[in-house]
């Protein structure tokens, strides 16, 4: 029990460290950007109309006051941490005066949904197939599946997404290639809306799954093929324990332990994938929001998004770490 406590403490420390380092990188980088939100706004606001030059000088002044972008680095750093702690990042500069948090909460559900669905499918399916493939070495269909999955594994998310876009958007246009749901449909748990959301998520999810599967598949397969020669498995077979039971409770059960750690470690990468996928399929998540925010030179929004994504990912990792001991009784502070 004390081992568990120590373990948790350690993981939590790690969690704090990740968040801290991440935040600082984000802060430093965003504040090094030469983009000036005020100039961005003015440029955008006056791009087409006819505005006299003195007017612009005046506009610049009042926007500076409005956005409150004056002040040195340290005060900004301090206020940044204050904001992180209360998860309020002030008003967005490219959608002033709407608070950043409002924009993020609007987009976050889409990304989180996308991630949870695709990651679950990927991880479960990948481990299941991988486990079977490792256990039934000479099953043809599994061999083939393995080859296909491994073919996709090394290809970057963008390329896979692009291929899907071309196939289902252009050559055989049966699936929506943009947006998160049908236009002008009332949001809620109505079957139409849910169905529409599902339909729009097929391609993004598919691209994430296709890339992801291979890793889990191979990991699980090699793990399993090592575990089947472990004493306890051999012994169980000598003991005439049913094959299904052996596969489940002896082989898979033991192989899952490292795979769960693997999941925690790869969440960051998966998140990157989600951002790119959203960009390709115009999915209304935080990926698209982030990129447009960077374009608009909107510090506060970029900071908010980076912060939220780092915290979100780390929390997910922490959650997995906490569940880990349930899976492996031999928990020790690693």
């Amino acid at each position, binding site marked *: 029990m004390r081992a568990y406590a120590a373990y948790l403490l350690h993981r939590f420390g790690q969690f704090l460290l990740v968040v801290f380092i991440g935040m600082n990188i984000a802060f430093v980088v965003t504040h090094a950007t030469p983009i000036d939100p005020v100039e961005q706004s003015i440029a955008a606001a006056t791009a087409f109309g*006819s505005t006299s030059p003195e007017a612009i000088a*005046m506009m610049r002044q009042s926007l500076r006051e409005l956005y409150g972008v004056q002040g040195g680095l340290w005060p900004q750093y301090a206020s940044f941490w204050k904001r992180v702690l209360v998860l309020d990042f002030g008003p967005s500069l490219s959608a002033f*005066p709407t608070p950043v948090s409002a924009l993020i909460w*609007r987009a976050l559900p889409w990304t989180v949904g996308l991630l949870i669905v695709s990651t679950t499918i990927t991880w479960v399916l990948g481990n299941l197939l991988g486990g079977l493939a490792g256990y039934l070495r000479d099953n043809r269909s599994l061999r083939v599946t393995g080859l296909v999955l491994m073919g996709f594994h090394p290809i970057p998310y963008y390329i896979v997404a692009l291929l899907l876009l071309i196939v289902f958007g252009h050559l055989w246009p049966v699936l929506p290639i943009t947006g998160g749901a049908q236009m*002008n449909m009332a949001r809620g748990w109505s079957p139409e809306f849910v169905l529409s959301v599902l339909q729009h998520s*097929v391609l993004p999810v598919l691209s994430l799954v296709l890339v992801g599967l291979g890793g889990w598949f191979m990991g699980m397969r090699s793990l399993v093929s090592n575990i089947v020669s472990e004493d306890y498995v051999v012994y169980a077979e000598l003991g005439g324990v049913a094959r299904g039971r052996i596969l489940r409770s002896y082989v898979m059960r033991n192989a899952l332990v490292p795979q769960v750690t693997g999941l925690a470690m790869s969440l960051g990468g998966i998140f990157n994938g989600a951002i790119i996928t959203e960009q390709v399929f115009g999915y209304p998540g935080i990926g698209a929001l982030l990129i447009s925010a960077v374009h608009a030179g909107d510090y506060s929004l970029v900071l908010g998004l980076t912060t939220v994504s780092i915290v979100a990912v780390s929390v997910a990792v922490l959650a997995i770490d906490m569940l880990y001991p349930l899976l492996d009784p031999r928990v020790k502070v690693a």
Partner: protein
Amino acid sequence: MKRVLKGLLFGALMLSIVGSVVAQELISNVPRKETLIVENPEGTIKNAGWFNIWAINAGGQSTGLHQLAMDTFWYIDPNKGIDGVWDNSLASEKPIYNKDFTEMTVKLRKGIYWSDGVEFSAADVLYTVQTHLDTKGLRWSAPIQINVASISAPDPYTAVFKLKKANSRFHALFTVRWNAMWMMPKHIFEKAGDPLKFAFNPPVSLGAYVLNSFDANGKWFIWQRREDWQRTTLARFGQPGPKYVAYVDAGPPDKRVIAQMNHQLDIIHDTSPEGMFTLAKQSRLSRAWFAGFPYAHPDPTLAAVIFNTQNELLKNRDVRWALALLIDIKAVSMAAYRGAATISAIGVPPTGTHAEYYHRPIEPWLKSFEIDTGKHKIKPYDSTVGKQIADSLRPSLGIQIPDKPEDIAKAFGMGWWKPDPQAATELLEKAGFKKVGSQWMTPDGKPFVMKITVEGEGRPVMTRAGSMVAQQWRQFGIEASTVVAQGTLLERRAAGDFDAIISWSVETWGGHPDLSFFLDSWHSQFVAEPGKPQPLRNWQRWAHPELDKIIEQVRGIGFDDPKGIELGREYVKLVAREMPSIPLMSYNVFTVMDETYWTGYPNAATAPYTDPVPNWGNTKYMMVKLRPRQ
């Protein structure tokens, strides 16, 4: 085992079924036949629920908001207009100035109502102007506070502006060319508190449409024709056709093309030339401004290679001219537009009514115009370039290429500067440059580096033009390359953070010969210190006493005074001699309109009544011309 695998296969099958079989209507609860679907080039609106257009880019504006729900005194059409270029919208007549241009009186139409049934009156005008006087940081606060001393309303249908100083162009502030200062509903805003923090959701409309619904994630906005559309200014031209208008984020160019091929996007705002050609070939009912090549609508905007004339090397006119003489406009037109460009040699876009006011009258002068390379004089102008482009395209495109000179001029432009590397060499040497091996060196012996800033994916066509210009300079031995400033271009342009930039410092009314729209801001009084942000539009940061003289004279005369045209021509000759930026072509926009559901779109030949480019506030006039396809 087998069972598990079967299960997996089944799952995959279900997935694809969810996808394919349940193919739905594009928009739910709105009949497609009564809906016009338009691309909003702003893409996804971060802050969808914000309709207070008077707060500086807090939300979207070409989401249909300023096309369908806003209105103000006057509109100037970039093309011919429904009846004339000038339209009195909320005003019942043209602006009335006193003789020294220190007071402007506006007569308002009667019987115009807000969508919530309140009548529009001078009270709203007063409120709008007063609010901008009292509040800092509203979109039009600055120009109002600079110009307006006071405003009064002798009667509910008259507004009188007392100006701080003479300004013969003050009405421009209320004259829609893309947009202008819109009227605020007094009865809403006066209850709303701080006008900077008020979202104005749902918007109360002064136009013929009112908001029906919108996407919280900012991907689409659907507007609905007002029951009482007769009580809006548009009613003078009859009933608007579409019952619903949807402004949507159509994604990247190829997705737009796909969408229109599947008749899910009636108006594409802009696409690549290749996309345009594809639609022309494959989509039977897709239409563009020109029935055939070059298809695109020439916006009254002059795409140019804009130099930063504060940059040491580029202060010298000879250097600028040398660089100009290295450009083969035919290749640039090819690279940027596949030939579908309307070129212009002079500092005015070759569009709308400008050709007859400027390009044609000025051509004799251009033909005789000489520059001195130091070794000898050359006549750089070649009046046949437009024809050459047409001829070079005719073999591949055949009949759709016009052969009547005036048609060619309309489609491809008239003449341009002929490439003359010899003269360029002489000019550079005159300026103290040296060629060492294959590499040009600056007077102080460093390699001659030119970085051309382009916007990248934001404006593919301009990016392509930039790369071609860079290539031509490079081939001459100048170390030239392009720099992508996606998203940051506007700011870098203002900051003067470039050697040369592909952009536009010349934008005009299009329909009206007056040039003050951009020219006034070229006065040397506005040129910023190097490194300081330059107010629009003199991006080249170029000052010249003769120019200042011209501008000051323009300020002194009326908007419609024919003398304005004379002064305009003076300006044209001046910039031709000085070459502060190299004019390339008009900004041609490939707006593609699908006639599957709607007909009556504007076009160059038979219905040039307005600009089809849908993010223009002026496109409200399109609605009354659109009719469902029979």
